[in-house]
């Protein structure tokens, strides 16, 4: 009984806040971005109107993009801290085992495998999603920069890069949205309602099903020995100054990203033309 109600720590507060920021920025980017891809559809038209017209839709999209980029910088800092200071295991690293797990899982669904795979802290589905977000965000930031700063971009790249970036930005967006809707929604909302991203804890049942190896590890008490506090402090002394500098540089970069260029004049100048000019005639 108690075993069934037992929950296991899964996500820290920081991770949950990060996820919240991601939900917010991703959702806003989606609902302001997709209508821009399909303005000729009625729903696109209506959504753009709901955001107060195309220009304000673009502004909202860009504000959400700034939020996503801040989150990306922060996430980079957190990962670096974990890797350098905490020296945690690389549980999110994809491996050959994940490919095998994926096929075994699919095989089980098709009655080709007898049992579903037993998986670790992050299973193949979660890794796929995490790296898809990383990949997608990088693509979106790069192509987004190109669309935001086309003149700066064409200083380095041929002009065609801009429409190509637009194509990639749209294609990648569509891919990301469809992945979230199909993959993410299914796995954490439909298959079972996984509240761990909000409560921080996962039920034993879900642990058994999705993270059997991790559960076994926890229950066997095979936690790695904690790093001595002195060592942690030494690493922090190195990490924090470097992190502050790098974060500052990135934030400056972000500021430049946003304000890099004035792409176009805000109003097309009105050309005054003398209208009433009867032809000159000899009297």
């Amino acid at each position, binding site marked *: 009984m108690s075993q069934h109600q037992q929950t296991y720590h899964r996500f820290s507060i920081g991770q949950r806040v990060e996820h919240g920021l991601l939900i917010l920025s991703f959702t806003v980017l989606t609902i302001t971005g997709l209508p*821009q891809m399909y*303005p*000729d559809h009625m729903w696109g*038209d209506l959504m*753009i*109107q709901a955001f107060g*017209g*195309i*220009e304000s839709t673009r502004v909202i999209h860009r504000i959400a993009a700034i939020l996503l980029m801040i989150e990306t910088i922060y996430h980079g800092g957190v990962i670096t801290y974990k890797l350098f200071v905490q020296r945690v295991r690389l549980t999110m690293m994809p491996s050959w085992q994940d490919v095998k797990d994926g096929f075994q*899982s*699919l095989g*089980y*669904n*098709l*009655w080709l495998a007898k049992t579903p795979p037993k998986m670790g802290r992050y299973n193949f589905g979660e890794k796929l999603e995490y790296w898809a977000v990383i990949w997608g965000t990088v693509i979106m930031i790069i192509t987004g920069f190109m669309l935001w700063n*086309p*003149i700066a971009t*064409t*200083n380095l*790249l*041929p*002009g*065609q*890069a*801009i*429409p*190509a970036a*637009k*194509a*990639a930005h*749209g*294609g*990648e967006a*569509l*891919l990301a949205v*469809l*992945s979230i809707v*199909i*993959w993410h929604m*299914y796995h954490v909302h439909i*298959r079972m309602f996984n509240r761990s991203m909000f409560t921080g804890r996962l039920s034993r049942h879900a642990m058994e099903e999705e993270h059997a190896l991790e559960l076994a590890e926890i229950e066997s008490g095979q936690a790695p020995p904690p790093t001595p506090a002195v060592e942690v402090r030494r690493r922090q002394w190195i990490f924090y100054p470097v992190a502050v500098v790098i974060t500052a540089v990135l934030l400056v970069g972000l500021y430049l990203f946003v304000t890099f*260029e*004035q*792409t*176009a*004049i*805000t*109003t*097309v100048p*009105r050309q005054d*033309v*003398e*209208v*009433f*000019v*009867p*032809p*000159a005639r000899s009297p």
Partner: protein
Amino acid sequence: VIGSYRLRPTWGLFMALSLALLWFCVVPERVDASVPAPDSACKLCHVGNAKELVLPSGETLSLGVGLEELQQSVHGMHATEQVYCVDCHAGRRRYRFPHEANPAQNLQEFRANIAQNCEQCHVSGAVHNPGHLQVEDKTGIPTCADCHGGHAVASSKAMAADPVGTCQSCHQTFEDPHVGDVHAEVVMNLGSEQSCETCHSALPQAEDTQCKACHSLLTSQLTLISGQKVDLHVNPDVIAGSVHGERQVQGQLYQALQCTDCHRDQGRYGFPHPELTAETARELTIDMENLCQECHQEIFQRQADGIHGIALEEGEVNSATCADCHGNHDIQDPDEPRARVSHTCAECHSTIQEQYTSSVHGAALEGENNPDVPVCTDCHGVHDIGDPTTAEFRLKSPQLCGDCHANEQMMAKYGISTDVFDTYVADFHGTTVRLFEKQAPDQQTNKAVCYDCHGVHNILPANDTHSQVIKENLLVTCQQCHPDANANFPASWTSHFKPSMEHNPVVYLVNLFYQILIPVLVGGFALYVGTDVLRRWWDRIRRRKSSLP
């Protein structure tokens, strides 16, 4: 016995003989009872050198009758039936002999009475002498004899031969207070078909013939208060040859318009014409504008709502009225030939028309009367011409260009791509402009429309060396809105090409990449999710079964 006088037979015989003698002496010709009047008796006294009658007013009147003239007149030997003195001087006791005193107090009354004599036979007198009858003050108006003469009655034929002479007996000068010596000019030029009466008739309203009678003859100009001169001449042939002449339209015959169909306000255009209030020729033109309204109501209203109508209303007197574009009496089909349209606009907008003429559209119009190229009105509208500087016009303009440039049938003739509109709308500029057009048509946007790049009236073919959009000039064109644009920047515009391996291959490949990647990945996800749903459903049922007792 009569009184104290005893009648004797000899006296009686003497009296009877004397009376008989007198009768035969005075009326010697009276031999036939059918002869109605004793003409000879009248003529016996009323000979050329007869006495004068003195009227109570002191005016004198000759009692002599020009018998020779009478004989030569229409009532004389040329008459189909002999007219005797008593045919006219009949029915009243005073013409009997001995004559009673003439009741006329003056010469005028005397003449007026004579008219009654004529009316015994010429009952059409009421419609006759009409101009004069319209005069309110009847004193001094001429009676029959004033124009036709008394005994020397002139035939209407003879009078028509010299109408002026007839009228001139009273109207010695033809001075019109309104048009000065215009009247004299008309009179000088009167044709054989026309007479004073042509204008001065009794018709209740002025009529075509009246108008044309004067205005076709007039060659002089009317001087306005401003000193400007306006033509008074109207050539009836010009009107007949205009759209308002008799014409066949789609098998239906339309009658020619009368002058008064347009110039209908009798107070303004009735005859004699009132003093003109317009001080300048322009004022006169504007004043005439509403003439068209009566028939062309809808178009007139559209024109009034258009930029010209509004400007006119706001006091811009140079703004075009109906007649400025269509002409007045010489109105022809406004778009026949098509180049006529731009020539008409050039009357006020000459510099713009010069630009247009040098453009690809204008050159084709002038050179070959091309039926496809837009003339001014195709883009600007006809009567309800809008202000082309508004946000609305700007936002709608791509659709305007697209109406022709997305028309495959039309563009095929010239080998022009019809992708231009779609590729524009697919691009950043076009997408934005379309959205503004749909959602905020009154708001300005800084995104380019067709004419920002291609030019407005001076559009050249995209491969013309002077074209704003040829590769060599494109950077300068982009820099109008993107001042910092560099040499690579123009290539970020896909030049209206749909991405392909030939044009913008990178864009094409990126699109292709996602066109493959998205279905493969999403299909894979869907496959996994679908099988997972089935398997979990299966497992659950089996578990439930196995947990049953």
